[in-house]
Each structure stands twice: as structure tokens, then as C-alpha cells.
């Protein structure tokens, strides 16, 4: 397995030999996508624990560094800026909502400005619209929004760093058809972009100078034709490789799979409810969750038995994968253990205005998650097969 992976990577790396020292003597290769997802989700979990703006900005900086150092040149690896815009929008919405649906101002707060107050009737007195806005309210709502924004950026980092098509390979066999459909769906957008670019280039070569609607017609028709041709070709290729065959599942095994999955999902839902609601009876919590998980796994196993397939060029899971995933998980675990720091410093309050502290252990923990930028091997040069 490893020998195969080596031989496929090395020729690809050979043309770019003059790359001097990007990560020492390590061979450039793509990290296992699941390792990136585990790292990013663990970091998002760690972020959910804190409301400290300093730590949140530190997480954003770490994400930015790791992405700059380890992203590939693939189309999906250029999207982090959009996640940042989304994050800004989240913060802005949070602040505006807090200002409009006023939560009250106390005499000790720093008054900033006043919005026009919309009076509400007595029976609706629980909600106030407009009114004075304090500096404390804006600051605390901005940090509150920043936390959600940070979690969004963590997911964005995983999307940027991991190859989505390769990530779909690890889906259990029972969800195989779903994985195929998603893979085809997510390759549509890059393919469309490529088509448009090709058609536009061809028009330029033919000195087509039409503008506006006429130019649109000249582009849309060839692009649609191209897309249709491509999908027919893809369908033929998939058919010849044995995709979409019915398999050996009997009606009974299919029913059993369905029943197991349905019961398992019910168990998971009940368990989540039981865990979140403190007044629910104890057996609805962890036990229901466990039973649900076991049923789901059994259902997936049973359903996966009818799909037998081999993997072409499997992604290896080696030391760098362990290191990256481990650094993320370790940071999340350390932030939830309250080890060596005051938990109050993770959630500083702005009532009354106080400078947030920078607790040492959480800072070190976030920097530890940032070591993924060194632990992961440098990204390989982009391959045509992945880019399209």
C-alpha cells in the first residue's frame, strides 16, 4: 500500500524539484482529509468553550497560518476568504440585533447612542425595540458573534484544506450511493467554470466581439452542450465500472437495515434530548445515545455488506495524520479540563468594562493546535485529476 502511494507521488513531485525547503526533507503529499476534518472540528469544539476575544482572534490567526502554509492549489482551496466574509456578516448581524432588540441599559454602562424607541403594549412588554445602546452591549454581542464566526471559520478551514472527494471515500459502504451522488454534484461547479473559460477562450480566438445578451447566447449553448456530453461520458464510464448495480441484497436484509437505521436514529435523537434537558429521566441520556449509536452502526454494517468494492490508491494514514488530528483533539480536551487556569478567564464579562485576560494554558493550547502547520507534510503540486 505504502509502496504504491510512494511511487505515485514521487513522479508528480519530480518536476518541481527546485522547491528548496518547504517543510524540510519531507515529500510533499496531501494529508488524509479525515485528519484535517478531525483537527478542524476539534478546534471548533475548543472554540465553543471560550468567549475571550483574545483567544478567538488567536484561533483565527492560527487558522490563517495553517491554511496559508498547507493549502493546495485546488479550486476548493481558494475559498477561505469567503468564509471570512461570512464570519464578518455573522458578527455584524449579532451586533445589529443586540442594538435593535435592546436588552436594557444600566446606569453604570457607557452610553453610546440611542435608537428610536418603538413602544410595545403592556402585554408584550418582554421585548423592547430600540432605545439606548451601551458600549458594553456592543462589545459583548461582538464577542458572542465572533465565537460563532470562529467556529464557522474552523469548518471553512477543513473545507479549504481537505480534498472533499477523497473525504467522501471514507463514507461507510451503506452510504455509498449517497457518496457517489455528492461527488458528482460537487464536481459540477469547477467543471462548469472550466467549460466557461474554454468557450470564452475559443470565442476570443475567433475574434467574437458580441456583448451582452448575444454574447451570453454564444456562451451558454456551448457550455450546456459540453456539460451534457461530459455527463453522458461520465455515465458511460461509471456504468462500465460497475456502478449502480443492484447488489445481492434480499428484501429482508434491506428491511432489516432500514429498521435498524430508523431505530438507531430515534435513539440518537432521544439521547441528545435527554442529555440537553436536565430534567429528563437519566435513562434517556447516555444509555439511549449508546443504544442508538450501536443500532446505527449495525445498520450501516448490514447495509454495507452488499456493497463490495476495492479502493484505488487509498490515502495512507501515517504519523503526520496522527500528529495533526492529535494536536487538534488534545487542544479541545485541554480546554475542557480546566487544568491550570481559572475558567472565569475563558469567559470574561464586559459588565463592568474589564480588559480580558490572556490565560496561559489556553493560549499555549491554541498554539499547539497551530503546530499542524508544521506537522502536516507540504502540499503536493496540483494534479489535473483533482483540480477538475
Amino acid at each position, binding site marked *: 500500500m505504502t509502496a504504491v502511494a510512494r511511487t505515485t507521488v514521487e513522479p508528480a513531485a519530480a518536476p518541481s524539484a527546485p522547491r*528548496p525547503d518547504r517543510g524540510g526533507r519531507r515529500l510533499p503529499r496531501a494529508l488524509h482529509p479525515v485528519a484535517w476534518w478531525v483537527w478542524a472540528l476539534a478546534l471548533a469544539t475548543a472554540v465553543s468553550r471560550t468567549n475571550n476575544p483574545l483567544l478567538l482572534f*488567536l484561533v483565527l490567526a492560527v487558522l490563517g497560518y495553517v491554511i*496559508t502554509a498547507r493549502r493546495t492549489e485546488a479550486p476548493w482551496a481558494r475559498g477561505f476568504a469567503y468564509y471570512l466574509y461570512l464570519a464578518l456578516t455573522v458578527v455584524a448581524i449579532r451586533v445589529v440585533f443586540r442594538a435593535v432588540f435592546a436588552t436594557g441599559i444600566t446606569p453604570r454602562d457607557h452610553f453610546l447612542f440611542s435608537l428610536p424607541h418603538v413602544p410595545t403594549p403592556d402585554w408584550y412588554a418582554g421585548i423592547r425595540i430600540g432605545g439606548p445602546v451601551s458600549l458594553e452591549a456592543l462589545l459583548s454581542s461582538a464577542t458572542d458573534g465572533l465565537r460563532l464566526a470562529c467556529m464557522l471559520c474552523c469548518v471553512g478551514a477543513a473545507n479549504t484544506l481537505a480534498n472533499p472527494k477523497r473525504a467522501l471515500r471514507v463514507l461507510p459502504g451503506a452510504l455509498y450511493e449517497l457518496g457517489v451522488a455528492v461527488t458528482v454534484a460537487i464536481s459540477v461547479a469547477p467543471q462548469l467554470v472550466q467549460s466557461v473559460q474554454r468557450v470564452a477562450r475559443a470565442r476570443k480566438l475567433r475574434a467574437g466581439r458580441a456583448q451582452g445578451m448575444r454574447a451570453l447566447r454564444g456562451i451558454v449553448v456551448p457550455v450546456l452542450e459540453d456539460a451534457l456530453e461530459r455527463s453522458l461520458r461520465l455515465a458511460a464510464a461509471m456504468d462500465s465500472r460497475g456502478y449502480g448495480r443492484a447488489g445481492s441484497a434480499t428484501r429482508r436484509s434491506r428491511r432489516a437495515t432500514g429498521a435498524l437505521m430508523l431505530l438507531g436514529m430515534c435513539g440518537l435523537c432521544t439521547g441528545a434530548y435527554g442529555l440537553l434537558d436536565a430534567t429528563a429521566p437519566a435513562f434517556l441520556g447516555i444509555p439511549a445515545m449508546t443504544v442508538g449509536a450501536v443500532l446505527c452502526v449495525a445498520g450501516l454494517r448490514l447495509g454495507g455488506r452488499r456493497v463490495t468494492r476495492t479502493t484505488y490508491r487509498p490515502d495512507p494514514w501515517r504519523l503526520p495524520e496522527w500528529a495533526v488530528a492529535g494536536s487538534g483533539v488534545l487542544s479541545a480536551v485541554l480546554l475542557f479540563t480546566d487544568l491550570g487556569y481559572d475558567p472565569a478567564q475563558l469567559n470574561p464579562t464586559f459588565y463592568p468594562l474589564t480588559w*480580558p485576560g490572556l490565560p496561559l494554558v489556553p493560549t499555549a493550547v491554541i498554539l499547539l493546535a497551530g503546530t499542524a502547520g508544521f506537522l502536516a507534510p507540504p502540499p503536493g503540486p496540483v494534479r489535473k485529476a483533482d483540480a477538475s
Partner: protein
Amino acid sequence: MIPARLAHAAVRVAAALGLTAAALGVTAAPAAAAPQPMGRCTTTSGVVLAVDFSDWGGPLFRSCGTAPTTGYELLNQGGWRTTGTGHDGPAFICRIGYSGYKNGKQYPTPGEDDCVLTPPASAYWSYWHADPGTNDWQYSQLGAMLYKPKPGSVDLWIFGGTNIEGTEGRPTVTPDQLRAHNTRPQGGGTRPSSTAKAPPLPPDVDTGPAPERRATTPAGSGSPKPEPKEPKPSKSPTPSHTAGPTDSPSAQAAPSPKTKVVDAAPAGEAKHDPGSIVPVAAGVSLVALIGAAAAFVARRRRRTE
């Protein structure tokens, strides 16, 4: 020319600053509410505030505030202090502290509840009222910032859980154990040591107005009509059963099976430490350092490709 313009600008800035300060001063001025010693609360004037710290081994404190006020102001004067949640702001009471108890430490502590989101329904400060003359608690239908207590009523904050029907988690003390039973204010000579909110009323009001007038005159100034409807003379015929001397801060009031009721005298504010700017500077420089590293890596990548 230029100095003149500069001076002009300076004057304008100073004027703007002065206006801002004035605006701040105006907004910072408290409403007509003031902390009072316990003996100043009577059956028809003032509001009794009671907070139960028994979850943390403390007593049930009660203190007195003048009437036209909100539940929030009542809970934020005379050494009392609250903290809201990060999500909902100060209006959601998440922690309560009294500067005369454990140096103003607020409960629940950050280790018990981080006060970022709404606290769980099983452990939060629930808000109860008892109108003048009634002897059962009513779960507050309004938040502390919107509710205006009636003169002579009791506001109680207890920690714990309640259910939707209001049958579980009800207070174990009765309003009669907490309310003021004297018909006229007592111990007017002692001015509270609180500097945060000096009482706007002169200290000799106890001689002049009758309790009825004190209750109605402030109510006319904008707040919803808190007309006490109970028969006043029949309610409190025995001034002998008073709430005890006001000068001693720990007067044992009516006995309760578990909790000890202690009168909380108006106290000064607990000291607030705004913290230091050093951690912020350190954090910002750390973020800038990582950002510079990222920029460096990005430039090197662009050069090699």
C-alpha cells in the same frame, strides 16, 4: 490663522466632550430609588428585597429600597450587584452578589455557571413577588428591568430550579417572614454608608408624610399605578412585631426551618478592578506575529510557484 483654527477646533471638541459627559451624567443618574436601612421599609412604603444564598451556605439577606424603582435597580443598590449573561446582557440576572457577604463575591461562581448563555432551568435565580397584604409568592411574569415593585411588596430571588407549572421549586419562606411589619419608618438617623447611590430624599422624611401619601406620590410620577388595595389598618395592627433593630446588620427575623434571615445594611460598592492592558497587548502582538508568519509563508509560496 492656523492656531486660531486649532483653538476653534479645540473649543469645539471640548464642547462636544462636555456634552457627552453631560449626556453620560444624565443617563448615569439613577431613578428616584435609594437603598435604605431595613427599618425604613413599612407595610405601605419601600420595597423589601430578599436574596437567598442558602445554596452556598449563606443566609437569606433582606434589605430595603424606596418604591418607584425597577426590580433591577432594587437589586443593584446598597452594595448589591448583579451580572447578566453574555448573550442577553444585564437584563438577565445570572449572578448576584452583596458586598457585605464574602467581599461581594457573586453567585453562582464562574466555575458553576459561565453565564454566557441562558442558565439551565434547573439552576438559575428565579424571581418572586409578594404584593402588599398577600401571603403567597407569585412567579414574576416580567424581567427584573421591566417589573416595577409596588410599595410595601417583597421581591425575592431564590436559586434553584422551577418547573413550568410553578409547583416545584417554590420558596420555602413565606412573605410574612420577610416583609416589613412596622407601619412607620424606624431608625431614621442612620444614613447608609453607601456612596454609590445617595438617597435623594432628605433624612428627616420619617417625621412628615403619612405612609399612604408616600406610597401614592411617587406612583404618580410615571410608573404604572401601584395602588395598594389591601385594608391597611387591619393588616398591621401590631408594631411590636417589627423587623428588629436596623443598626445591627445581623438581626434574626422570623424563624425559618432551614434558612437564616439576615438584614443587609446598605453597604458601599464592592471594588471593581478593570484589569490591566498587558494581556491585551500580549495577545494582540501574538496575533500580529502569527499573521506576519502567514504573510511570509504566502509570499514565499508565491515566489516558488
